[in-house]
Each structure stands twice: as C-alpha cells, then as structure tokens.
C-alpha cells in the first residue's frame, strides 16, 4: 500500500522491540467474541488510475454548462483562481487546530484577520473563527441569547427566514427550555414588524431577522432594531448572502447584538451544500458568552506580536458541560479561503460586486415581469433574488426548463406544499445578460 512506509524488515524489528511476534497480538485486549471474523465486506482497494476514471464519470453528471438561477442559500460566485493554490498550501491544509501557537502563527494570524474582516463587515465588535454553517450558527445564536438573558424564554423568528434555517433552529430549540413564535410576512415580502411589535412581551428573549430574507427581499433592519431595542429584546440578525453587505448597511449599525450568517457566499464553491462557513459576530459585551474559537493578539517572550487561541475557558475542552458550545473542529479552512477572497475583492470590489448582483437581479426581475404568465410576487426591493409566480405549477415548468438547459431557480413547493406556483430566482455576477434573454424566451415556450 503506497501510503504505508514500513518494509517487512522494519516491521519485524518493531515487533521485536515490542516483544511480540505478530501484529495481531497487539489486539489481544479485544475480546475475540467482538472481533470481526474475516475481512470487511468492502471491495479491494482501487488504484488511483481506476478511481480517477470512475470519479470523473460520476462528476460529469452535473451539467456545469446549464444556465443557472439557483440560489436559496447557496450562491454561485466567481472565485479567483489565485485562491486555491495559496490556501491549499500544505501548511494551511495539513495542519491541525493551532493549539501550539509557536508552531501555528500562520493559521492564527489568518484567523485574527478573518475575525477582523467579519466584524467589520457585519459592523460588530468581534467575530469568531467560524461555526459549522449558517443554520446551526443561527441556532447557536439563539442559545447564546438564552445565556445572555436566562430569564426570558420566548424566541421570535421572522417567517421569512430560510426554511431550512428555521427548521434547524427549531430542532435545536426543542432540546432547550425555550419556546418560539413565527412572525408573519407582509404581502410585499417583508417581515410584519407591526406583528412583531405586538408579539413582544416580557418573556421575549430575542428576535431574529434575515436582513435580506429568503425571498431576496431587503428587510427594514432599522425599524426592527428600534422595536426590539425599545423592548429590551435581543436583536439577532441573519445574513445568508453576505455580499449583500456591500450594498446594505451592516446589522451592527442597527443595534444587532449577534449577527450570524453563512460565509459560503464569500467565495466558497456551492459544493452540493457543504463545507460552508458559519459566521458569528457579537457586540463587545457579549464576547465571553459567544461560542467558537477565537484568535487573540498577545506577545511572545521577546515582546514580539503573536497570536494564540484565547478565551478558551468558554470552550468544551476546558469548560466541558458548561461550555458556550460543543463545537471543536470548525470550518477554519473555509474561513481562510474567505479571508483571501475578501482580501482580493477589497473595499471597492465588494461594493461593485454587490451593485452588480443587485443590477442583474433588477434587470431580470423587470424582464420576467413582462413575460405572459409570470408575476412578480413581492413588489419591493430585492438584493439578488426574488420570487416569481408562474401560471402553471412551478415544478412542471422547472423540469421543462431544465430540459432546455436552464436551472430556473428553486421551486418553493419544496418548502411549503401549498406554494405550488412560486419559483425563487437568483442572479449573481456569474449570470450573463443573455441568460435572462434565454430564460424569458424559454419561459414563453413552456408556459
């Protein structure tokens, strides 16, 4: 086996040093009754040559040349080629968590930079090194709110939050002694903040708003902030398309206590849904309550600036059952890629990118609204996605368009069986102007 560096002679030497004759003796502590009899029922190893052939065939199923309007929490992004060769350097890719700071300054400095970038982007005081992904990060945010304010028990959730996120938050909440309430959505696709206001009572722990919501609609963070801060309800903001922060004001500016988000949109491949990147940022006063790893600045014995993992007393390996989270391995390498992406993109690049996404979606929205049998569901401003209602069942049209080489969006019936005609359409910088022309033309044919 090409990965094993022992010759027969070396094995014999080692066995001799140990004082046994066969490797099998080393397993003598394991009762025979629970040992596997014979071999694992897994085929013989595959050579690299054969594996490559097989896997190329499998990967080529995916129609990478289809025109795509798929979004819904997983965004097609242009990723500069400069990123992969650098972040995949063995020093980054094949190292463990930076427990030994003297041997891990690269990861630690990059983490510190990531924390700074994400804190700045969200307008918060501190961000952690990463969470698993957006939905579980959102659940952790709610649990953190409960740590900040253990007396209040009811969680207010906008129902315009991504349905998979809602489902995830609710799953986690089932195990807490917390309740939740969904705040309805207005006709125009925004969360009904008046309803929120009346839902708030003394038991209201926190309110979570997805600032560009599942339907691509830009929420009124300002009003939300005012309502919740008035009532001492913790302000939780969720950002899934993080590039929107190049256009939309940061939640920190509206008093958010915790901002959580999905970092995939910052230059990670869609990769069938993972690995992604949970973003978690907080106000200074909440830092010691936050989950996840943190890199902190300090000095070495010579007084030089250095970084190390810090505030570990929040974490499971020190605090065990009292920890602020159970997270251990996180998504560091994804965070590193995002750090490099944001570094390349830069201040002006982000602004342009956000405007490009906005402009493309706006143009598409207008073009689609002209198509007979298509109506825009929400008459309001969107970032880079929006819902259209189709004359015929969306799933049917979706399949017909797929046959024409167009992945037209996400059928909403998957999330709400009554929503049979809605389609969530996303445009990013990856869409060309002709994509929209093709989509409208194809829609005319199939509608």
């Amino acid at each position, binding site marked *: 086996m090409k990965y094993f560096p022992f010759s027969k002679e070396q094995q014999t030497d080692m066995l001799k040093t140990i004082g046994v004759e066969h490797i099998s003796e080393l397993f003598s502590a394991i009762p025979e009754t*629970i040992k596997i009899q014979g071999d694992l029922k897994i085929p013989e190893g595959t050579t690299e040559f054969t594996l490559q052939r097989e896997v190329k065939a499998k990967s080529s*199923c995916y129609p990478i040349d289809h025109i795509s309007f798929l979004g819904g929490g997983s965004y097609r992004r242009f990723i500069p080629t400069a990123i992969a060769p650098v972040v995949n350097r063995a020093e980054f890719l094949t190292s463990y968590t930076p427990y030994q700071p003297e041997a891990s300054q690269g990861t630690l400095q990059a983490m510190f930079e990531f924390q700074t970038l994400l804190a700045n982007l969200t307008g918060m005081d501190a961000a952690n090194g990463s969470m698993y992904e957006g939905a579980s990060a959102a659940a952790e945010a709610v649990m953190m709110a409960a740590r900040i304010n253990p007396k209040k028990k009811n969680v207010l959730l906008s129902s315009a939050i991504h349905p*998979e996120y809602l489902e995830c938050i609710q799953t986690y909440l089932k195990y807490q002694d917390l309740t939740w309430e969904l705040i309805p959505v207005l006709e125009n696709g925004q969360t009904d903040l008046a309803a929120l206001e009346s839902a708030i009572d003394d038991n209201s722990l926190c309110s979570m708003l997805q600032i560009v919501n599942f339907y691509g609609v830009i929420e009124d963070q300002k009003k939300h902030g005012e309502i919740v801060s008035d009532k001492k309800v913790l302000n939780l903001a969720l950002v899934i398309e993080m590039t929107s922060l190049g256009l939309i004001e940061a939640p920190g500016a509206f008093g958010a206590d915790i901002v959580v988000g999905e970092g995939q949109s910052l230059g990670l491949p869609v990769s069938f849904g993972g690995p992604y990147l949970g973003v978690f940022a907080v106000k200074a006063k909440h830092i010691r309550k936050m989950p996840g790893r943190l890199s902190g600045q*300090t000095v070495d014995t010579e007084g030089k600036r250095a970084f190390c993992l810090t505030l570990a007393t929040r974490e499971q390996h020190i605090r065990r059952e009292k920890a602020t989270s159970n997270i251990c391995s996180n998504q560091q390498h994804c965070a590193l890629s995002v750090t490099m992406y944001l570094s390349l993109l830069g201040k002006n690049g982000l602004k342009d990118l956000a405007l490009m996404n906005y402009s493309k979606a706006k143009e598409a929205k207008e073009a689609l609204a002209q198509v007979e049998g298509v109506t825009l569901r929400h008459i309001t401003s969107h970032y880079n996605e929006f819902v259209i209602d189709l004359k015929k069942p969306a799933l049917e049209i979706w399949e017909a368009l797929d046959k024409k080489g167009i992945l037209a969006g996400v059928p909403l019936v998957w999330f709400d069986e009554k929503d049979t005609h809605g389609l969530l359409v996303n445009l990013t910088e990856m869409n060309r102007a002709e994509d929209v022309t093709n989509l409208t033309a194809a829609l005319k044919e199939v509608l």
Partner: protein
Amino acid sequence: MSPGRKGLVLAEPLLFEHAASATSGMDLPDWDVAKSATTEIPAHLLRKSETGLPQLSEPEVVRHFTRLSTYNYSLDAGFYPLGSCTMKYNPKINDWVASLEGFANAHPYAPFEHNKGLLEILWEHKEQLKEISGMDEVCLHPAAGSHGELLGMMLICAYHEDRGDFKRTKVLIPDSAHGTNPSSAAICNLESVTLPSGPDGLIDMEALDKLMTDEVAGIMLTNPNTCGIFEINMKKVADLVHERGGQVYFDGANMNALVGIARPGDMNADVLHFNVHKTFSTPHGGGGPGAGPIGLKNHLAEFLPKPVLTKKEDFIFQDFNRPKSIGRIRSFYGNIGVLIRSWAFIKTLGGKGLTEMTGQAVLSANYMKARLQEKFHVPFDKQHCMHEVLLTDKNQEASTLDMAKGLIERGFHPPTIYFPLVVQGALLIEPTETESKESLDAFCDALLELATKSSEELHHLPETTFVQRVDETLAARKPILKWDLKP
C-alpha cells in the same frame, strides 16, 4: 537526528497594515448590464459604514498568505503525533477528487438526477461506514465529530421521548472523555454525570452499576478510550446500560484502532460518530472542516434529521418524508466536499487495506511505547496500547509543557498534552500508520533526550521558531480579537 533547524522566514504585517495600493485584487466578471440606481432601496438601509476591507493587488495578497503559511508546522512537512487527532497523511488524490468541477459546482437545489454521480458516491460512503461500524444506518449530515455527538444524543433523547420515557435527563460520561461529550450532551439539556475510571484507566464497573439509574438516558463512551487502551468491558457496559433502559453512544474519534478489527455495532453501541478528518484522512485545514457522520442502529433511524439519503431499487434520492424526524441540524446535506475525500480514501484502501492500516497504526504506537517506556511513566500498562500511547511527566523534572516546547524546537509537533485529564501531565502520542520507522525513531530519540533535561534547560524553548513562547495568559486577560486602526 531531529529535523529542527533554523531558517529564514519572512515577516508579514496584518492585512490592514498594508497601504492601500489597488482598486481591487481581482476582476469581477464584465459588467454586461447597466448599473442600476439603488434609489428604490430606502436610503437608511444602504451601506454607509466602512466595510473595513483592504485595498490590495493580487500579488500582495498572494504574498501575504504565502508568508503566513510558512509560520505553520504541517503534516506534509513533519511528524504530527497529536493524540486523539489521528494526523495521518492526507492523500493528494482525495483533494483532486473533491476539486472536480462537477462536484464543486453541484448546486444543492439542482434536480437530483444531475447529481446522480455524487449521490452514488454518498450512498457508497454510507455503505462503507455501515460495514466498518457494524451499524444499520448512517447519516452524513454532521459537520464534525462534535456535531455528530450532538445529533446522536438528540436521537437518543427522541427515542426515549417516543417511548414515553421522559425521566431520563442524565448521561454518564467517563472522566477520561473528550470535552465535546459533556458539552454536546448539555445542548440536549442532559446533565452529565461523571463516571470515574478505575486504576487501570478503564470504566469502573461498580461505579457504572451504581450510577446507571432510570434517570439516565445513556452513556457516552470512547473506545479505545483517550488513555489509548481498549475498554475491555465495553460489551458488558453496553448490556448493563441497555438492561436499564439506556442507550450507548460511542465516540468514534479513536476508530483508527478498530477499523477492520472490531466494530462498535458488534459491541452493542447504538450510535457512534466517525471523525473522517481523523480516521479517513481528510485534511484538517488548521481546524476544519471535517465531517462527523454517525452510524446507528435501526431503532434510532426513524428519528434521523431530514433529508435521509435513501435507495429504492436502483434509485438514490433524498427522502424528506420522515414524520418522526427530529428536524434538521444544518442546512443542506453535510460537508460533501469532505465526505467525497473520505469515500475516496476507503475506496483506495479497500477492506484489506483498512485492516492493514489499523495494524500499522497500532504497531507504531506500541513501538513508540516500547521505546519511550525506557524513561517515561506509562500510567496504564496492563494492555498493549492501541493506536496511541499515554505517558506522563511523572519521572521527569521538566514538565510536559516544557518537553512539548522542546519538541517544537527539535522539529516535531508535540503530542496532545494535558489530556486526558485522568492523569497528571499527560502526553498522548498517536503516530498513525503513515509515519516511517525512521521518523518514529527520531521522535523517540528527541523525547528521550528531553526527558533528561531540567525545566531550566527547556523553559526558553522554542527559540528557533518565528515567535518564541507565546503569552497565552495575557491574551485572555486583555482580549484583542480584532485589528483596530491605531488612533
């Protein structure tokens, strides 16, 4: 001879300390639509605050991260015997497989037939993990081991609840367990009850008998445990827990000692997680991403989170129709880019290769134990160790920390230190199957030499590294967690 030498390393300031030099370090795709006015968005919602991003060119950014990388010790460059972390060689072919365009660009909401190839891989991976663990079903969702633990405990709670058994609010956890065990249980609102180890480092059966009441939802155990030795009573433990209505969670972090030799399912575990970033060689990336798929017995399957990857006849699909499902523990379906790699690893080794892998890993650990025993205290020495060996600094004047830092100076990553907590001054050494005898010997030579040094002689180490010993206390006392413009 130890590999540690001095060398030239290039210092790099923080991203934010570089002067603004370029409009952007990347091209956006061409503007082929007009820039829309943003007037339709209420002005108060438009971004006015600084985004705080740098303004650098591509060459500067590439250099920045290239330089940072050189401050890291890595597995490709050296021995990384972190106990309980299974830092084995990460095969490059697996990275290649994961990087294929048809996988990287596969959108989770594309029609499933477009992802047929990928679904076949994931299905096959489930089958591999079932066979390796002896479990009935596998779920690929968890993003890491700890996420798997949480999911496993959620399933156990759902199971009890489904049976109408609401009093089980506790969970037994051996004192040698990893911190994620109690903290994962805590998220499920379970109270951890510590199960003390006996003098042999194994679960104390009497204590178990006493603590395993009808308020206990189950036990979370690790086998081999974090002392590197096999819980020989594992099956008895499981049987006792089961008899009293509890469930057995098996922390599979140490599966590198068992693959192809014995199966948790056959030891009557009900649910376990794998850390594919340990046992199945996916790169740890300086902290993650990993993946923590779980294996489980049939009686827990109905509670699995949605969607469940299912095969009906020859058709593989995601099943969302799961009435008793606990819900979701994440968006989408799992850390697919990582799971493709672990699938490829198992595919490459095959059944026989996996058994060989385990044998080599255990051989290496025992060889190191045999050599290091010359000077070190081996607290639990009744058995051969499994894939890792636990030492303490009892016989040494210098502390474990000092020796660890001395190892860095000599060019080795230190082992896991001060864990497990059941012994003082732990050094938990896990060589894995991919380290050569030469390398094992060089490490043993270095550690045996350090074992003779005084604290005095070591406390200034490491000194050749880019930074010297780092003041971790200061970092925690006055946390600086982000860069701020100096006034």
